[in-house]
């Protein structure tokens, strides 16, 4: 019987890859603003050209920061393309339109469907590639700290910071409990699907109870180190003028790209 590893370790640290580059060192707030602005600009495009261009640029950056090839293929090719292809096919057959160009086993295929499908395809691969570059170059912790600066309520930031730690802790614990069950034949081939699901539920139940109990102790530990409702677990420095300038530039470029895209619209094809 094949051993299926239902339960895997979640590790944020393995997300950051590549050699330390300028992009790695850039302030997380700038990168977050940049990623948001760029992705927003991508989904506002009416033409596939600029998104495709951005996808290529992201690819160049991935190689520039020396992202391992396997990771590149997994995150920037396999994942977005599998999503994008499904969307492409679905849209071609369901979107409809007026100018039929072909048919597929009796299903009409319209010109409008095709061009919209291609546009969506381009938007998806472009935005996921931007997100991948962002994830590969930014520590999740830095992003969480940056949330202070974006005026996210303090409780939410604290929750996020603590969740990060506990995600790791509980995921490790669940992996070990899973192993303990496995080592007592808990997932052996002899057992039915129902029993295996039941065993998984037991791990989840145990995990929750343990989490809640641990929550009480952690709280006591925090209090014994002077925790009050105003104390913050992390802090962030003010944004430097240079970084602020970067933000402005990225936003301006994004807006500019959308304008270019919309002007083409006047010249170019329909939609």
């Amino acid at each position, binding site marked *: 019987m094949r051993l299926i590893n239902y339960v895997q370790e979640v590790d944020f640290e393995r997300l950051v890859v590549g050699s330390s580059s300028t992009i790695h060192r850039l302030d997380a707030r700038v990168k977050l603003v940049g990623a948001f602005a760029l992705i927003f600009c991508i989904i506002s495009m009416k033409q596939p050209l600029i998104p495709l261009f951005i996808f290529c640029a992201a690819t160049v950056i991935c190689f520039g920061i020396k992202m391992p090839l396997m990771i590149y293929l997994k995150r920037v090719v396999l994942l977005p393309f599998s999503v994008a292809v499904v969307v492409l096919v679905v849209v071609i057959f369901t979107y409809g339109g007026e100018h039929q160009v072909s048919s597929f086993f009796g299903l009409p295929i319209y010109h409008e469907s095709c061009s919209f499908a291609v546009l969506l395809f381009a938007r998806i691969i472009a*935005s996921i590639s931007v*997100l991948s570059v962002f994830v590969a170059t930014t520590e999740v912790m830095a992003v969480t700290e940056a949330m202070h600066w974006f005026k996210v309520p303090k409780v939410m930031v604290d929750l996020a910071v603590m969740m990060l730690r506990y995600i790791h802790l509980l995921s490790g614990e669940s992996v070990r409990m899973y192993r303990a069950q496995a080592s007592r034949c808990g997932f052996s081939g002899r057992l039915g699907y129902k029993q295996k*699901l039941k065993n998984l539920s037991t791990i989840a139940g145990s995990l*929750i109870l343990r989490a809640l109990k641990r929550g009480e102790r952690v709280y006591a530990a925090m209090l014994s180190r002077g925790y009050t409702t105003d104390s913050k677990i992390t802090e962030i420095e003010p944004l430097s003028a240079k970084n602020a300038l970067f933000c402005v530039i990225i936003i301006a470029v994004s807006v500019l790209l959308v304008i270019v895209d919309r002007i083409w619209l006047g010249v170019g094809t329909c939609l």
Partner: protein
Amino acid sequence: MHLSDGILAPEWCLVWFAIAIVFIAVGVWQIKRGTKENASYLPMLAMMGAVVFVISIWHIPVPVSGSCSHPIGTPMSAIIVGPFPTVVLGAIALFFQAFFGHGGLTTLGANVVSMGIVGGFSGYLLYVLLRKVNSPLWLAAGMAGFVGDVLCYLTTALQLALSLNPGSVLSHWALYTVGYMPTQLPLAVAEFVFTAGVVQYIADRRPDLLAKKLWGGVSSA
């Protein structure tokens, strides 16, 4: 399984963000109030959020479709910590999941609406309702998981239809829903088993955790 960046139109992204923020604001307000009453509330919530994240990353094999999928976990969380805090936990969990390629940044609002708000609230309301008519605990929890999961996907399908096919929303909504069925139905069954199992397990070991959080004083045992 969550919507990734690039699928929804920008105006819809903003609409879903707006809706999500209203619920998150209420959730944050509730959490703040809860923290004042019982400061150990915050670490408890963080633990619960971590559990939701960890569980929704597990890949449970779906025997019918042959693929792997995972439970959304929010109905279960809503039963234990209440629906509004669940929305906040869901939002943070979804933000982190975007790092692993589940969902995206601009579609965060849409995903919070489907998974956190619709999944959490529908599951929770059904659970309370079923407990009021004295159904067994495992059945109430399981149905909450099942319905929360199904409604979550109905919402996702609606979001797709609204954004992609503004001219014929209803027919496309139905179409997308049918498209989701083969993979999501077995998953919803898995969520049933899962939520029922976990909640029953907690009731067996720590009944006090379930009893106090219910609206209208429904007891859990």
